[in-house]
Protein backbone atom coordinates (compact mmCIF):
# COMPACT_ATOMS: atom_id res chain seq x y z
CA UNK A 1 0.00 0.00 0.00
CA UNK A 2 1.29 3.42 -0.87
CA UNK A 3 1.33 5.89 1.98
CA UNK A 4 -1.40 8.49 2.04
CA UNK A 5 -0.77 12.19 1.58
CA UNK A 6 -1.41 14.30 4.66
CA UNK A 7 -2.45 17.92 4.90
CA UNK A 8 -0.68 20.18 7.44
CA UNK A 9 -3.78 19.84 9.68
CA UNK A 10 -3.64 16.05 9.76
CA UNK A 11 -2.42 15.77 13.36
CA UNK A 12 -5.05 18.27 14.50
CA UNK A 13 -7.78 16.18 12.85
CA UNK A 14 -6.53 12.99 14.47
CA UNK A 15 -6.28 14.68 17.87
CA UNK A 16 -9.87 15.97 17.58
CA UNK A 17 -11.57 12.62 16.91
CA UNK A 18 -11.41 13.04 13.15
CA UNK A 19 -12.35 9.75 11.54
CA UNK A 20 -9.60 9.53 8.94
CA UNK A 21 -10.25 7.81 5.63
CA UNK A 22 -8.41 7.40 2.34
CA UNK A 23 -9.93 9.98 0.02
CA UNK A 24 -8.29 9.77 -3.42
CA UNK A 25 -4.90 9.12 -1.85
CA UNK A 26 -5.23 11.66 0.98
CA UNK A 27 -5.85 10.86 4.63
CA UNK A 28 -8.84 13.08 5.31
CA UNK A 29 -11.44 13.35 8.10
CA UNK A 30 -14.88 12.09 7.09
CA UNK A 31 -16.35 13.46 10.33
CA UNK A 32 -15.34 14.58 13.84
CA UNK A 33 -18.65 14.41 15.69
CA UNK A 34 -21.73 13.57 13.64
CA UNK A 35 -22.31 14.21 9.94
CA UNK A 36 -25.78 15.56 10.70
CA UNK A 37 -24.51 17.89 13.46
CA UNK A 38 -21.68 19.14 11.26
CA UNK A 39 -24.08 19.62 8.35
CA UNK A 40 -26.51 21.62 10.48
CA UNK A 41 -23.73 23.71 12.02
CA UNK A 42 -22.70 24.78 8.50
CA UNK A 43 -26.26 25.64 7.47
CA UNK A 44 -27.03 27.51 10.71
CA UNK A 45 -23.71 29.00 11.85
CA UNK A 46 -20.32 28.00 10.44
CA UNK A 47 -18.43 24.93 9.32
CA UNK A 48 -14.64 24.73 9.06
CA UNK A 49 -13.31 22.41 6.37
CA UNK A 50 -9.77 21.33 5.51
CA UNK A 51 -9.83 21.26 1.71
CA UNK A 52 -6.06 21.19 1.26
CA UNK A 53 -6.39 17.98 -0.75
CA UNK A 54 -7.81 20.02 -3.63
CA UNK A 55 -5.07 20.69 -6.19
CA UNK A 56 -3.88 24.27 -6.63
CA UNK A 57 -2.11 25.20 -9.85
CA UNK A 58 -0.60 28.57 -10.66
CA UNK A 59 -0.08 29.95 -14.18
CA UNK A 60 2.12 32.96 -14.87
CA UNK A 61 3.15 34.58 -18.13
CA UNK A 62 1.56 36.55 -20.95
CA UNK A 63 0.32 33.39 -22.68
CA UNK A 64 -1.38 31.94 -19.56
CA UNK A 65 -4.81 33.33 -20.49
CA UNK A 66 -4.83 32.15 -24.11
CA UNK A 67 -3.46 28.76 -23.01
CA UNK A 68 -6.15 28.22 -20.36
CA UNK A 69 -8.78 29.37 -22.85
CA UNK A 70 -7.71 26.55 -25.15
CA UNK A 71 -8.31 23.83 -22.54
CA UNK A 72 -11.35 25.02 -20.57
CA UNK A 73 -15.02 25.31 -21.51
CA UNK A 74 -15.40 28.98 -20.58
CA UNK A 75 -13.50 32.01 -21.70
CA UNK A 76 -11.07 32.98 -18.95
CA UNK A 77 -8.60 35.10 -20.92
CA UNK A 78 -10.92 38.10 -20.44
CA UNK A 79 -11.33 37.70 -16.66
CA UNK A 80 -10.48 40.81 -14.68
CA UNK A 81 -8.25 40.64 -11.61
CA UNK A 82 -10.32 39.18 -8.78
CA UNK A 83 -12.83 37.30 -10.93
CA UNK A 84 -13.37 33.56 -10.60
CA UNK A 85 -15.10 31.25 -13.05
CA UNK A 86 -16.36 27.67 -12.76
CA UNK A 87 -15.48 25.71 -15.89
CA UNK A 88 -14.64 22.26 -17.16
CA UNK A 89 -11.68 20.62 -18.80
CA UNK A 90 -12.99 18.39 -21.56
CA UNK A 91 -11.57 15.86 -24.00
CA UNK A 92 -12.02 16.03 -27.77
CA UNK A 93 -15.20 13.95 -27.45
CA UNK A 94 -16.62 16.38 -24.87
CA UNK A 95 -16.11 13.96 -21.99
CA UNK A 96 -15.35 15.63 -18.69
CA UNK A 97 -11.78 15.43 -17.36
CA UNK A 98 -12.53 17.65 -14.38
CA UNK A 99 -14.58 20.57 -13.15
CA UNK A 100 -12.41 23.40 -11.92
CA UNK A 101 -12.33 26.97 -10.66
CA UNK A 102 -10.21 29.48 -12.57
CA UNK A 103 -9.12 32.53 -10.56
CA UNK A 104 -7.57 35.61 -12.12
CA UNK A 105 -5.46 37.39 -9.55
CA UNK A 106 -3.14 40.37 -9.34
CA UNK A 107 -0.01 40.53 -7.24
CA UNK A 108 1.11 43.58 -5.25
CA UNK A 109 2.78 45.02 -8.36
CA UNK A 110 -0.41 44.60 -10.39
CA UNK A 111 1.00 41.65 -12.35
CA UNK A 112 -1.81 39.31 -13.40
CA UNK A 113 -1.72 35.53 -13.00
CA UNK A 114 -4.11 32.61 -12.70
CA UNK A 115 -4.92 29.99 -10.10
CA UNK A 116 -6.76 26.84 -11.08
CA UNK A 117 -8.30 24.64 -8.36
CA UNK A 118 -8.70 21.04 -9.44
CA UNK A 119 -10.31 18.03 -7.73
CA UNK A 120 -7.89 16.09 -5.53
CA UNK A 121 -8.40 12.84 -7.42
CA UNK A 122 -7.68 14.50 -10.76
CA UNK A 123 -4.50 16.35 -9.78
CA UNK A 124 -2.04 14.16 -11.65
CA UNK A 125 -4.34 13.61 -14.63
CA UNK A 126 -4.92 17.34 -15.14
CA UNK A 127 -1.28 18.23 -14.47
CA UNK A 128 -0.23 15.81 -17.23
CA UNK A 129 -2.95 17.08 -19.54
CA UNK A 130 -1.57 20.61 -19.01
CA UNK A 131 2.12 19.71 -19.33
CA UNK A 132 1.50 17.89 -22.61
CA UNK A 133 -0.11 20.99 -24.06
CA UNK A 134 1.90 23.88 -22.60
CA UNK A 135 3.29 26.21 -25.26
CA UNK A 136 7.08 26.41 -25.52
CA UNK A 137 7.15 29.84 -23.98
CA UNK A 138 4.91 32.40 -22.33
CA UNK A 139 3.38 30.19 -19.62
CA UNK A 140 4.89 29.01 -16.35
CA UNK A 141 2.91 26.25 -14.68
CA UNK A 142 3.45 25.50 -10.97
CA UNK A 143 1.71 22.90 -8.82
CA UNK A 144 1.43 24.57 -5.39
CA UNK A 145 -0.74 21.90 -3.77
CA UNK A 146 1.83 20.60 -1.32
CA UNK A 147 3.36 23.99 -0.46
CA UNK A 148 0.02 25.50 0.51
CA UNK A 149 -3.10 24.56 2.45
CA UNK A 150 -6.71 25.47 1.72
CA UNK A 151 -9.36 26.04 4.35
CA UNK A 152 -13.05 26.56 3.64
CA UNK A 153 -15.13 28.54 6.11
CA UNK A 154 -18.79 28.12 5.23
CA UNK A 155 -22.12 29.18 6.66
CA UNK A 156 -24.03 32.32 7.63
CA UNK A 157 -21.42 33.21 10.26
CA UNK A 158 -18.38 32.25 8.15
CA UNK A 159 -17.45 35.77 7.17
CA UNK A 160 -17.65 36.96 10.77
CA UNK A 161 -15.32 34.12 11.76
CA UNK A 162 -12.76 34.60 8.98
CA UNK A 163 -12.67 38.41 8.78
CA UNK A 164 -10.17 39.01 11.63
CA UNK A 165 -7.55 36.90 9.83
CA UNK A 166 -7.44 38.82 6.56
CA UNK A 167 -6.58 42.38 5.58
CA UNK A 168 -9.39 42.78 3.04
CA UNK A 169 -13.07 43.44 3.81
CA UNK A 170 -14.76 40.13 3.03
CA UNK A 171 -18.30 41.53 3.13
CA UNK A 172 -17.38 43.87 0.28
CA UNK A 173 -16.14 41.04 -1.92
CA UNK A 174 -18.63 39.58 -4.38
CA UNK A 175 -19.49 35.88 -4.57
CA UNK A 176 -16.95 34.22 -6.89
CA UNK A 177 -14.26 36.83 -6.41
CA UNK A 178 -10.85 36.42 -4.83
CA UNK A 179 -7.61 38.25 -4.11
CA UNK A 180 -4.26 38.13 -2.40
CA UNK A 181 -4.20 38.97 1.28
CA UNK A 182 -1.75 38.91 4.16
CA UNK A 183 -2.45 36.30 6.86
CA UNK A 184 -0.15 36.19 9.90
CA UNK A 185 2.21 38.33 7.86
CA UNK A 186 2.42 35.79 5.03
CA UNK A 187 1.34 36.05 1.42
CA UNK A 188 -2.02 34.28 1.22
CA UNK A 189 -5.21 34.22 -0.84
CA UNK A 190 -8.91 34.48 -0.01
CA UNK A 191 -11.99 33.97 -2.18
CA UNK A 192 -15.75 34.09 -1.73
CA UNK A 193 -16.26 30.54 -2.91
CA UNK A 194 -17.31 27.18 -1.50
CA UNK A 195 -18.96 23.85 -2.07
CA UNK A 196 -21.79 23.82 0.44
CA UNK A 197 -24.47 26.14 -0.95
CA UNK A 198 -23.79 28.56 1.90
CA UNK A 199 -22.16 31.94 2.10
CA UNK A 200 -18.52 31.83 3.07
CA UNK A 201 -14.96 31.95 1.87
CA UNK A 202 -11.94 29.81 1.15
CA UNK A 203 -8.48 30.70 2.38
CA UNK A 204 -5.21 29.48 0.91
CA UNK A 205 -2.07 29.90 3.01
CA UNK A 206 1.54 28.70 2.94
CA UNK A 207 1.73 25.22 4.52
CA UNK A 208 4.02 26.52 7.31
CA UNK A 209 1.30 28.71 8.85
CA UNK A 210 -1.67 26.47 8.00
CA UNK A 211 -2.05 24.84 11.40
CA UNK A 212 -1.92 28.17 13.19
CA UNK A 213 -4.55 29.64 10.86
CA UNK A 214 -6.72 26.54 11.26
CA UNK A 215 -6.40 26.69 15.07
CA UNK A 216 -7.34 30.34 15.15
CA UNK A 217 -10.49 29.60 13.14
CA UNK A 218 -11.29 26.41 15.07
CA UNK A 219 -10.95 28.24 18.39
CA UNK A 220 -13.56 30.74 17.24
CA UNK A 221 -16.14 28.11 16.30
CA UNK A 222 -17.64 27.36 19.70
CA UNK A 223 -18.66 30.98 20.37
CA UNK A 224 -20.75 31.12 17.19
CA UNK A 225 -22.18 27.59 17.23
CA UNK A 226 -19.90 26.29 14.51
CA UNK A 227 -18.08 22.97 14.14
CA UNK A 228 -15.07 21.55 12.35
CA UNK A 229 -16.50 19.55 9.46
CA UNK A 230 -15.39 16.47 7.60
CA UNK A 231 -15.91 15.26 4.06
CA UNK A 232 -19.11 13.44 5.09
CA UNK A 233 -21.14 16.60 5.53
CA UNK A 234 -19.32 18.31 2.68
CA UNK A 235 -20.98 15.64 0.53
CA UNK A 236 -24.49 16.04 2.00
CA UNK A 237 -24.19 19.85 1.82
CA UNK A 238 -23.13 19.88 -1.82
CA UNK A 239 -25.80 17.30 -2.68
CA UNK A 240 -28.56 19.51 -1.24
CA UNK A 241 -27.13 22.40 -3.27
CA UNK A 242 -27.08 20.05 -6.33
CA UNK A 243 -23.42 20.72 -6.99
CA UNK A 244 -21.97 17.93 -9.11
CA UNK A 245 -19.12 15.84 -7.72
CA UNK A 246 -16.46 14.49 -10.06
CA UNK A 247 -16.52 10.70 -10.10
CA UNK A 248 -20.27 10.74 -9.42
CA UNK A 249 -22.22 13.22 -11.55
CA UNK A 250 -19.19 13.95 -13.72
CA UNK A 251 -16.84 11.60 -15.56
CA UNK A 252 -14.99 11.22 -18.81
CA UNK A 253 -18.11 9.50 -20.18
CA UNK A 254 -20.37 12.48 -19.42
CA UNK A 255 -20.28 15.82 -21.23
CA UNK A 256 -21.23 19.17 -19.63
CA UNK A 257 -24.53 19.40 -21.50
CA UNK A 258 -25.80 16.10 -20.13
CA UNK A 259 -24.70 17.21 -16.68
CA UNK A 260 -26.94 20.27 -17.04
CA UNK A 261 -23.89 22.53 -16.83
CA UNK A 262 -24.47 24.47 -20.03
CA UNK A 263 -23.85 27.67 -18.04
CA UNK A 264 -20.25 26.51 -17.61
CA UNK A 265 -19.67 26.31 -21.37
CA UNK A 266 -19.21 29.34 -23.60
CA UNK A 267 -18.94 28.96 -27.34
CA UNK A 268 -17.13 32.29 -27.84
CA UNK A 269 -13.67 30.72 -27.90
CA UNK A 270 -11.90 27.65 -29.24
CA UNK A 271 -11.25 24.83 -26.75
CA UNK A 272 -10.68 21.10 -26.77
CA UNK A 273 -14.04 19.36 -26.96
CA UNK A 274 -15.96 22.34 -28.37
CA UNK A 275 -17.21 20.62 -31.52
CA UNK A 276 -18.43 17.56 -29.64
CA UNK A 277 -20.16 19.66 -26.98
CA UNK A 278 -21.75 21.81 -29.66
CA UNK A 279 -23.15 18.69 -31.34
CA UNK A 280 -24.32 17.44 -27.97
CA UNK A 281 -26.51 20.51 -27.47
CA UNK A 282 -28.47 19.48 -30.59
CA UNK A 283 -28.68 15.82 -29.54
CA UNK A 284 -31.91 15.26 -27.66
CA UNK A 285 -31.26 11.59 -26.93
CA UNK A 286 -28.56 11.76 -24.25
CA UNK A 287 -29.14 10.77 -20.65
CA UNK A 288 -29.67 13.84 -18.49
CA UNK A 289 -28.83 14.75 -14.88
CA UNK A 290 -31.89 15.12 -12.67
CA UNK A 291 -32.82 15.53 -9.03
CA UNK A 292 -34.87 12.81 -7.37
CA UNK A 293 -36.90 12.91 -4.20
CA UNK A 294 -37.62 9.58 -2.57
CA UNK A 295 -41.16 9.07 -1.39
CA UNK A 296 -40.21 6.67 1.40
CA UNK A 297 -37.64 6.49 4.13
CA UNK A 298 -34.92 4.81 2.13
CA UNK A 299 -31.98 6.66 0.66
CA UNK A 300 -30.99 5.95 -2.93
CA UNK A 301 -27.25 5.43 -3.32
CA UNK A 302 -24.71 5.63 -6.11
CA UNK A 303 -25.19 2.93 -8.81
CA UNK A 304 -28.74 2.04 -7.75
CA UNK A 305 -30.78 1.59 -10.93
CA UNK A 306 -33.77 3.75 -11.91
CA UNK A 307 -36.80 2.10 -13.50
CA UNK A 308 -40.06 2.87 -15.27
CA UNK A 309 -42.19 -0.26 -15.39
CA UNK A 310 -40.06 -3.09 -16.78
CA UNK A 311 -37.45 -0.78 -18.23
CA UNK A 312 -34.24 0.42 -16.63
CA UNK A 313 -34.18 4.11 -17.52
CA UNK A 314 -31.23 5.42 -15.53
CA UNK A 315 -28.83 5.23 -12.62
CA UNK A 316 -28.30 7.11 -9.37
CA UNK A 317 -24.97 8.97 -9.04
CA UNK A 318 -25.31 10.37 -5.48
CA UNK A 319 -27.93 10.01 -2.80
CA UNK A 320 -28.40 10.54 0.89
CA UNK A 321 -30.70 11.53 3.66
CA UNK A 322 -30.95 15.33 3.54
CA UNK A 323 -30.46 16.73 7.06
CA UNK A 324 -31.78 20.19 6.10
CA UNK A 325 -34.92 19.00 4.32
CA UNK A 326 -35.54 15.81 6.32
CA UNK A 327 -36.22 13.80 3.16
CA UNK A 328 -34.14 11.43 1.05
CA UNK A 329 -32.67 13.05 -2.05
CA UNK A 330 -30.57 11.86 -4.96
CA UNK A 331 -29.12 12.88 -8.27
CA UNK A 332 -28.81 10.60 -11.24
CA UNK A 333 -29.02 10.27 -14.98
CA UNK A 334 -32.25 9.33 -16.77
CA UNK A 335 -33.50 9.17 -20.33
CA UNK A 336 -34.27 12.75 -21.47
CA UNK A 337 -38.02 12.25 -21.88
CA UNK A 338 -38.19 11.35 -18.17
CA UNK A 339 -36.24 14.37 -16.94
CA UNK A 340 -39.27 16.62 -16.39
CA UNK A 341 -40.02 17.50 -12.75
CA UNK A 342 -43.01 15.56 -11.51
CA UNK A 343 -42.12 12.38 -13.40
CA UNK A 344 -42.63 9.36 -11.15
CA UNK A 345 -39.99 6.65 -11.32
CA UNK A 346 -38.83 3.71 -9.23
CA UNK A 347 -35.41 3.07 -7.76
CA UNK A 348 -34.17 -0.42 -6.99
CA UNK A 349 -32.87 -0.37 -3.43
CA UNK A 350 -31.29 -3.71 -2.64
CA UNK A 351 -33.80 -5.69 -4.65
CA UNK A 352 -36.93 -3.72 -3.82
CA UNK A 353 -38.53 -0.94 -5.85
CA UNK A 354 -39.09 2.40 -4.13
CA UNK A 355 -40.97 5.38 -5.57
CA UNK A 356 -39.04 8.52 -6.50
CA UNK A 357 -40.16 11.75 -8.13
CA UNK A 358 -38.05 13.89 -10.45
CA UNK A 359 -37.70 17.34 -8.88
CA UNK A 360 -36.13 20.63 -9.94
CA UNK A 361 -32.56 21.31 -8.77
CA UNK A 362 -31.21 22.52 -6.44
CA UNK A 363 -32.94 20.82 -3.54
CA UNK A 364 -31.78 23.63 -1.27
CA UNK A 365 -30.75 27.22 -1.92
CA UNK A 366 -29.90 29.66 0.82
CA UNK A 367 -31.89 32.82 1.30
CA UNK A 368 -29.75 35.63 0.00
CA UNK A 369 -29.65 38.97 1.76
CA UNK A 370 -30.01 41.03 -1.39
Amino acid sequence: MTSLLKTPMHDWHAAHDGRMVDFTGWSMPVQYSSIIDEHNATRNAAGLFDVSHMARFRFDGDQAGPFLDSIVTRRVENLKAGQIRYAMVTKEDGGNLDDILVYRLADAQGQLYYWVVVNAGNREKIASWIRERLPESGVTFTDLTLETAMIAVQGPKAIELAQPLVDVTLSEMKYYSGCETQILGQQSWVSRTGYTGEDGCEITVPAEIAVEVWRTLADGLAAIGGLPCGLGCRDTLRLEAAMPLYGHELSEQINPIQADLKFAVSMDHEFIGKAAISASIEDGKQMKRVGLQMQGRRAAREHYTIHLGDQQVGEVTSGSFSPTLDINIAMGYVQPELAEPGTELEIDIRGKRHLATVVALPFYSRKRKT
Partner: protein
Amino acid sequence: MDPASLLYAKTHEWIHIEEADGGKLATIGISAFAIEALKDLVYLELPEVGSSLTAGEPLGEIESVKAVSDIYSPVTGEVVEANTPLIDSLDTMNEDAYGAGWLLKVKITDDSSLAGLMDQAAYLKQCEEEE
Protein backbone atom coordinates in the same frame (compact mmCIF):
# COMPACT_ATOMS: atom_id res chain seq x y z
CA MET B 1 -27.90 -5.50 30.08
CA ASP B 2 -24.32 -5.79 31.17
CA PRO B 3 -22.18 -5.85 28.02
CA ALA B 4 -19.63 -7.99 29.89
CA SER B 5 -22.12 -10.85 30.17
CA LEU B 6 -23.20 -10.86 26.52
CA LEU B 7 -22.08 -12.91 23.55
CA TYR B 8 -21.04 -11.23 20.29
CA ALA B 9 -20.99 -12.09 16.60
CA LYS B 10 -18.13 -11.16 14.28
CA THR B 11 -20.62 -8.94 12.46
CA HIS B 12 -21.14 -6.79 15.62
CA GLU B 13 -24.47 -8.08 16.92
CA TRP B 14 -24.77 -8.79 20.66
CA ILE B 15 -26.76 -11.71 22.06
CA HIS B 16 -28.21 -12.31 25.49
CA ILE B 17 -29.32 -15.89 26.14
CA GLU B 18 -31.86 -16.94 28.74
CA GLU B 19 -33.63 -20.21 29.42
CA ALA B 20 -37.39 -20.02 28.76
CA ASP B 21 -40.08 -22.71 28.36
CA GLY B 22 -37.49 -25.46 28.21
CA GLY B 23 -35.66 -23.72 25.36
CA LYS B 24 -33.34 -20.81 24.77
CA LEU B 25 -34.52 -17.25 24.15
CA ALA B 26 -32.04 -14.82 22.59
CA THR B 27 -32.28 -11.04 22.78
CA ILE B 28 -30.35 -9.49 19.91
CA GLY B 29 -28.96 -6.00 19.45
CA ILE B 30 -26.12 -4.13 17.76
CA SER B 31 -22.95 -3.41 19.75
CA ALA B 32 -22.17 0.12 20.91
CA PHE B 33 -18.92 -0.10 18.93
CA ALA B 34 -20.84 -0.68 15.68
CA ILE B 35 -23.47 1.94 16.48
CA GLU B 36 -20.71 4.47 17.17
CA ALA B 37 -19.14 3.63 13.81
CA LEU B 38 -22.48 4.09 12.00
CA LYS B 39 -23.24 7.19 14.10
CA ASP B 40 -25.90 9.07 12.10
CA LEU B 41 -28.66 6.47 11.89
CA VAL B 42 -31.52 7.22 9.52
CA TYR B 43 -33.30 3.92 8.87
CA LEU B 44 -33.82 0.51 10.43
CA GLU B 45 -35.64 -2.49 8.99
CA LEU B 46 -36.54 -5.44 11.21
CA PRO B 47 -38.16 -8.78 10.36
CA GLU B 48 -41.74 -9.48 11.42
CA VAL B 49 -42.67 -11.59 14.40
CA GLY B 50 -42.88 -15.21 13.26
CA SER B 51 -40.04 -14.88 10.71
CA SER B 52 -37.42 -17.63 10.65
CA LEU B 53 -33.82 -16.53 11.00
CA THR B 54 -30.67 -18.42 10.03
CA ALA B 55 -27.37 -17.75 11.74
CA GLY B 56 -25.10 -15.76 9.43
CA GLU B 57 -27.92 -14.64 7.12
CA PRO B 58 -29.19 -11.02 6.94
CA LEU B 59 -32.14 -10.32 9.26
CA GLY B 60 -32.62 -6.67 8.36
CA GLU B 61 -30.88 -3.47 7.39
CA ILE B 62 -29.53 -0.44 9.15
CA GLU B 63 -28.73 2.76 7.34
CA SER B 64 -26.64 5.76 8.32
CA VAL B 65 -26.16 9.00 6.41
CA LYS B 66 -23.10 7.45 4.76
CA ALA B 67 -24.19 3.93 3.90
CA VAL B 68 -26.58 1.02 4.32
CA SER B 69 -25.47 -2.18 6.08
CA ASP B 70 -26.99 -5.60 6.60
CA ILE B 71 -27.71 -6.80 10.11
CA TYR B 72 -26.82 -10.49 10.34
CA SER B 73 -28.64 -12.95 12.50
CA PRO B 74 -26.24 -14.35 15.10
CA VAL B 75 -28.57 -17.32 15.79
CA THR B 76 -30.97 -19.70 14.07
CA GLY B 77 -34.53 -19.40 15.34
CA GLU B 78 -37.91 -17.74 15.18
CA VAL B 79 -38.66 -14.08 15.92
CA VAL B 80 -41.04 -13.85 18.90
CA GLU B 81 -40.79 -10.10 19.49
CA ALA B 82 -39.48 -7.11 17.50
CA ASN B 83 -38.63 -3.73 19.02
CA THR B 84 -40.63 -1.85 16.38
CA PRO B 85 -40.89 1.48 18.31
CA LEU B 86 -37.13 1.73 17.79
CA ILE B 87 -37.70 2.38 14.07
CA ASP B 88 -39.06 5.83 14.94
CA SER B 89 -36.50 6.60 17.65
CA LEU B 90 -33.15 5.49 16.26
CA ASP B 91 -31.30 7.73 18.74
CA THR B 92 -32.20 5.15 21.37
CA MET B 93 -29.61 2.86 19.77
CA ASN B 94 -26.90 5.51 20.20
CA GLU B 95 -27.96 6.15 23.78
CA ASP B 96 -28.61 2.64 25.06
CA ALA B 97 -27.28 0.00 22.68
CA TYR B 98 -27.44 -2.80 25.28
CA GLY B 99 -30.81 -1.88 26.80
CA ALA B 100 -33.65 0.01 25.15
CA GLY B 101 -31.80 -0.32 21.84
CA TRP B 102 -32.44 -4.07 21.54
CA LEU B 103 -33.79 -5.29 18.19
CA LEU B 104 -35.35 -8.74 18.48
CA LYS B 105 -36.20 -11.60 20.78
CA VAL B 106 -35.65 -14.91 19.04
CA LYS B 107 -36.58 -18.44 20.10
CA ILE B 108 -33.52 -20.49 19.25
CA THR B 109 -34.33 -23.60 17.22
CA ASP B 110 -30.76 -24.79 16.68
CA ASP B 111 -28.35 -24.53 19.61
CA SER B 112 -25.36 -25.30 17.39
CA SER B 113 -25.77 -21.85 15.85
CA LEU B 114 -24.33 -20.39 19.09
CA ALA B 115 -21.00 -22.11 18.64
CA GLY B 116 -19.25 -19.33 16.71
CA LEU B 117 -20.11 -16.49 19.10
CA MET B 118 -17.50 -14.66 21.15
CA ASP B 119 -17.35 -13.41 24.72
CA GLN B 120 -16.78 -9.72 25.39
CA ALA B 121 -13.00 -10.02 25.73
CA ALA B 122 -12.66 -11.70 22.33
CA TYR B 123 -15.06 -9.20 20.77
CA LEU B 124 -13.24 -6.15 22.17
CA LYS B 125 -10.01 -7.56 20.77
CA GLN B 126 -11.63 -7.80 17.34
CA CYS B 127 -12.85 -4.18 17.65
CA GLU B 128 -9.36 -3.01 18.57
CA GLU B 129 -7.99 -4.69 15.47
CA GLU B 130 -10.63 -3.02 13.30
CA GLU B 131 -9.82 0.48 14.55
